[in-house]
């Protein structure tokens, strides 16, 4: 690992905005917040993955991965970050290094690759991602990028987050550092308004940002840049002229918010677009911070009026579902910000959270959960649940639905229990007031799909296939309604036939 990367990681760990980090002794802090992974019992992406997640949503730049085919070939085009314009970010660019590059170094191939991209695709910038193998053989991507920038007259940005540097979360921060070091503050916006904000850590998954943007538009608030969902290079380069920063995804890019505050005095707050209460709180925060920064103070009143209208409309639409979803038990297997932001949302839908995983959550995240869930929250915080435990919990009908990322979906499906994707591979947007209605509607659609009753029908023969007819139709129906009742949390006689 180059000296600069080591220093960078230490710097990221020094994060003043992270209470968890500041609570540690100096010695512990030096070790960083990277927990040593347990070989043979680890899951999740690497630092490169994290950096790519953080920056790939910048839609008009070419994202070039310098490494062997695994890093890009096995992973490209796998997220649903939406773009309102350029589609270049969906193309996979990689140097696909060969054995000879490993022996002689891959810098020449990298330089040529940058040239090919600029000649063929002419993007406003190229982001170059370091990977384990090229880092290990000592390719100096900073030097190559500097040379390429000078030669081609275009920003070529090194993103130094090789996979072995640590987990995904560290990669998010290292990706953010690349923006701080090379992008933000390098251009000036065409004009500014007192209503300019940046949204940091929002990836516009399945277009979620667009569920929120109309609210901001209506209030006259301009998203000067979004880092990085539906982002444009030039917008991010001029992000330093915003009046307020909103930080979305918990701590993943907190370093951008804190450093922009240090460098340009831009105040930031942490908000969420998930959940009705959180959305309203976020709008209030934006308005009050903008007014503090000099925007006309009627913004606050206009915001309150908009919130009133939007909340009333959302509640009315959710009320229909509340009746059906009241008391439904949800197992929430996700991490970080979603461990609490979605909790609030589900409670609004009348549901009960029987468990939320806090494996990837920060201390603050856990505080938030306690705040939202009240007494007994501890009992529902699951630190590290094995798939087998999740399966047992669902099979024994201690939960009615599991919300999680795509990788653990089969735990629920194989237990023949409803499941909903709330991570990055999903197809439904859950942002803002609109999104919360959509989430509740999706949960309703999942739980009340009659397929659950179908797939729980036991085969009318034994495992040997010979006891055909041994199970009488009457007995089978009784059995069925029992299972259905258990699944829906009803008494058997309440089950619709």
């Amino acid at each position, binding site marked *: *690992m180059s000296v600069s990367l080591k220093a960078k990681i230490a710097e990221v760990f020094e994060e003043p905005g992270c209470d968890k980090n500041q609570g540690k002794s100096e010695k512990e802090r030096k070790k960083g917040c990277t927990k*040593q*992974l*347990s*070989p*043979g*019992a*680890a899951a999740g*992406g*690497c*630092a*490169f993955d994290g950096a790519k997640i953080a920056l790939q949503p910048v839609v008009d730049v070419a994202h070039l991965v310098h490494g*062997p*085919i*695994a*890093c*890009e*070939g*096995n992973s*490209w*085009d*796998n997220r649903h970050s939406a773009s309102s314009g350029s*589609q270049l970010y969906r193309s*996979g*660019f*990689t*140097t*696909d290094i*060969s*054995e000879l590059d*490993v022996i002689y170094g891959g810098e020449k*191939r*990298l330089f*040529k*690759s940058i040239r*090919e*991209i600029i000649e*063929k695709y002419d993007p406003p910038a190229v982001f170059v991602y370091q990977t*384990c*193998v090229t880092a*290990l*053989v000592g390719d100096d991507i900073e030097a190559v990028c500097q040379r390429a920038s000078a030669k081609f007259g275009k920003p070529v940005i090194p993103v130094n987050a*090789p*996979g*072995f*540097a*640590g*987990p995904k979360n560290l990669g998010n921060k290292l990706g953010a550092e690349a923006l701080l070091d090379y992008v933000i503050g390098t251009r000036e916006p065409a004009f500014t308004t007192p209503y300019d904000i940046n949204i940091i850590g929002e990836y516009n998954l399945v277009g979620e940002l667009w569920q929120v943007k109309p609210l901001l538009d209506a209030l006259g608030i301009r998203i000067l840049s979004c880092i990085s969902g539906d982002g444009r290079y030039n917008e991010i380069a001029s992000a330093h002229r915003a009046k307020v920063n909103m930080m979305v995804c918990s701590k993943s890019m907190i370093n951008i918010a804190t450093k922009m505050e240090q460098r340009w005095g831009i105040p930031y707050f942490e908000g969420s677009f998930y959940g009705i209460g959180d959305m309203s709180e976020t709008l209030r925060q934006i308005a009050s911070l903008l007014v503090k920064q000099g925007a006309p103070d009627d913004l606050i009143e206009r915001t309150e009026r908009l919130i009133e209208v939007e909340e009333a409309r959302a509640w009315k639409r959710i009320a229909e579902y509340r009746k059906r979803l009241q008391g439904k038990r949800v197992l929430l297997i996700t991490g970080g910000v979603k461990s609490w932001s979605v909790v609030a949302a589900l409670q609004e839908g009348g549901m009960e959270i029987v468990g939320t995983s806090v494996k990837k959550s920060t201390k603050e995240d856990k505080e938030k959960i306690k705040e939202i869930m009240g007494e007994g929250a501890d009992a529902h915080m699951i630190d590290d649940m*094995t*798939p*087998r435990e999740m*399966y047992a919990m669902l099979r024994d009908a201690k939960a009615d639905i599991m919300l999680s990322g*795509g*990788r*653990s979906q*089969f*735990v629920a499906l*194989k*237990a023949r229990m409803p499941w909903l994707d709330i991570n990055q*591979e999903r197809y439904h947007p859950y942002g803002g007031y609109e999104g919360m209605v959509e989430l509740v509607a999706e949960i309703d659609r999942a739980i009340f799909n009659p397929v659950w009753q179908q797939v729980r029908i036991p085969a009318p023969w034994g495992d040997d296939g010979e006891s055909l007819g041994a199970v009488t139709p009457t007995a089978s129906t009784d059995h069925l309604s029992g299972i259905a009742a258990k699944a829906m949390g009803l008494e058997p006689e309440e089950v619709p036939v």
Partner: protein
Amino acid sequence: MARVVESKKACTVNPLKMSQPLGASFAFLGLDACMPVMHGSQGCTSFGLVLLVRHFKEAIPLQTTAMNEVTSILGGYDNIEAALLNIRKRAAPKLIAICSTGLTETKGDDVDGYIATVRKRKPELDDTEIVYVSTPDYVGAFEDGFKHAITAIVKTLVKPLPVVADQITLLPGSHLSPGDIDELREIVQAFGLNPVVLPDISGSLDGHIPPDWRGTTLGGTTLEDIRSAGASAFTIGVGEQTREGAEALQAIAGTPLEIFERLSGLEVNDRLLQRLSKLSGKPVPARYRRQRSQLLDAMLDGHFYTGGVKVAIGAEPDLLLAVGGLLHEMGAELRCCVSTTKSAAHALLPAQEVLLGDLEDLEAGAADCDLLITHSHGRQAAERLDKPFLRIGFPVFDRIGNAHRVQVGYRGTMNLIFEIANLMIERIAHHHAGDWPLTPEARRAATHVATSTEAPDTTTLASASA
């Protein structure tokens, strides 16, 4: 027939290729009660895992030795040992299968040596088989990783046994689906032969609901089955990628072999059934004689839509040959063929050349083609080009039911023909009144009796009306 050309580009754009460790892990997923492990950074495993989940819509057991910078430089012995012990403790597999990655190969970890040391130091692993295959990311592709994994399994676990006359070993290539394997098993069994399938993803990735949650693979070739391959009377391989494994079986147990370069198509399946008939001494069952006749009819019905069609295919070598070969037999022209790695299969491909390249190359080559065929990553190119698009191979993440797609045997070939023909039928051009304008010369000739003085006027008129 096809000449192999390597891309001259420095930058791969929109990769067609996936890495060796992923192919090796895929092979290991076809072994029962197995835990595949990538010896590398956790991202290597994570990316592969996500891709496999997206394709199969199944839980995928795949672990990592979680290498970091320091362990990469100092060597990964401790990580391998810890991973083996952890997996043994948590999932209790019968077999742990390790493949290396670019990271650990760059450092040069001696994993064979590590395993020997672990064996000495940790007797608690005595009840667990360990297979290792070297698969650097920066060499070869998915298919190569799969190929080497099969060879490694054979070399590690198979010993010569007394021959069982009615048992054969079936080595399916990585391009075969669980459905394909089921189809071939049925065909072999129809001759009264007993196949040992290695690896058998039809047991593990076929999307069944197990009675309980298991951390390892949910089925596939058992250790006993693998060992029993030493008693097979014959080895049948599907795809050139299985030759190395079949030859390893021959070297170890003296098993004769035949490699079928593909099993999509009429003549190749005739050969397979003849071979099985010879091995078993039984006639071809009526069911397959009937299926053959159905396939003939499908080829006749289908050829109207495939004849003269210009095709662009991007696929791993054996799949390219399977689909390309069939299309060629159905009258299509393989205008643009892109593949991932070198293979003996390319020599058999009825095309001018095969480019070892990426989907950018395929997109460029497909511009004047009628049909685009590749894995799901080709969807962007198909959209841009507005061409009919057939998804094949791995990954196909935007369609469900991949495990049950059958493209081998007479029936599978028929399916494939229908699928392609239907795609083309959807695009049959609907013509309009103005589609066939006459040339200006023809119109001039028809409207006026030309004289030398009038000629310039009519020319102006004709071009104005055109």
